[in-house]
């Protein structure tokens, strides 16, 4: 009989972690909204690198990026019952972290906090042209940089980037194009001599 067989299955074969790993973002978010911290942890593990990359490339500071991600995720946990699922979870969480990153940039502008140097993330290898690319990216204005980071580094679609950056898709397209053009020109200028 099927039922006794199910009941007889050893508890050790039931791997809750495995199931969470297979679940969609939206399902995990729903579970998290009901107070399931394990589901939320799965989302944290799934998104921490992308969120950190996003925050790091926009703020250009490792400590600030870490704070943005940490605060963003805590804010997301507190507000996850307001995530209605009509947008993708990724867009929602990117938007939260991007807001934190922009807050950092605004605070810097207000306090005229100096940026000592362009930050290279842990593990970056300055020996090759990676340094040039990241350094050139850092010289872009924040709005252009955010569009380039969202679309090219994180891999968001134009619409997703528009939702995350809270600007029209046309604006993202134009910022992305101008950002890439400036980057290309910068890299070319570095190579010229």
């Amino acid at each position, binding site marked *: 009989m099927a039922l006794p067989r199910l009941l007889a299955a050893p508890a050790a074969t039931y791997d809750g972690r495995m199931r969470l790993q297979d679940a969609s973002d939206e399902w995990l978010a729903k579970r998290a909204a009901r107070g399931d911290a394990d589901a939320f942890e799965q989302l944290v593990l799934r998104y921490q690198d992308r969120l950190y990359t996003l925050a790091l490339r926009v703020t250009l500071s490792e400590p600030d990026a870490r704070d943005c991600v940490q605060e963003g995720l805590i804010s997301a946990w507190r507000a996850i019952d307001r995530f209605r699922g009509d947008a993708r979870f990724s867009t929602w969480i990117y938007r939260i972290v991007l807001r934190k990153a922009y807050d950092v940039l605004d605070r810097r502008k207000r306090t005229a906090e100096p940026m000592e140097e362009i930050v290279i993330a842990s593990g970056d290898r300055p020996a090759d042209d990676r340094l040039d690319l990241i350094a050139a990216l850092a010289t872009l204005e924040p709005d252009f940089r955010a569009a380039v980071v969202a679309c090219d580094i994180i891999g968001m679609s134009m619409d997703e980037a528009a939702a995350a950056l809270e600007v029209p898709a046309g604006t993202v397209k134009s910022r992305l194009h101008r950002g*890439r053009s400036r980057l290309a020109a910068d890299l070319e200028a570095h190579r010229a001599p």
Partner: protein
Amino acid sequence: MTDNGHTDHDQLARRLHDQGQAQAPPGLAGDVMRQVRAEPRRPQRAWLRPVALCATVAVLLLAGIAGLTRIGGSGQSSSAGSAAETHSAARGATGADKLQGQRATPDAVVPERRVAGVPADKLATLSQLPFCAAQAHSYALRVPADRYNSVSRQLQAWAAARPAGAPAYDVQIRRAAASARLALTCP
């Protein structure tokens, strides 16, 4: 843009994607989850929203019913008041007495008042008498709010002093805005 430009941008995008990635610091997820677990969420109460919605609708409905009942009640008392007034005017009661009665009930709303048997010649001094085919023996008198009481009293006095057999009309007095002009109209 040229094809070359497209190619440049595509190559750049690929390089950015390959080289721009960074890894989150090792302790980040742990720190976040420690904080998350330290402030456990209040489990979402899925039933709360519909219940709150139903309660709100019920309160609004009750308020609406109460309001309608009150308006209906006022209308009835107003009609009753008008009928009584017509009756008392016919008996020759003084207008001042009735006004005293109305002042005694401050909550009473008297949007209109009816005075029976106002002599035609007196009425004509207030306004030209219009021709009303359907209601040959009654008129509506639109009175500015600030003159409402004085005109009412005047009409009641005229009605009370009407000589027997003189042509007369029933007048429905309607309170109008203070800026309105006093005018007789068909009811």
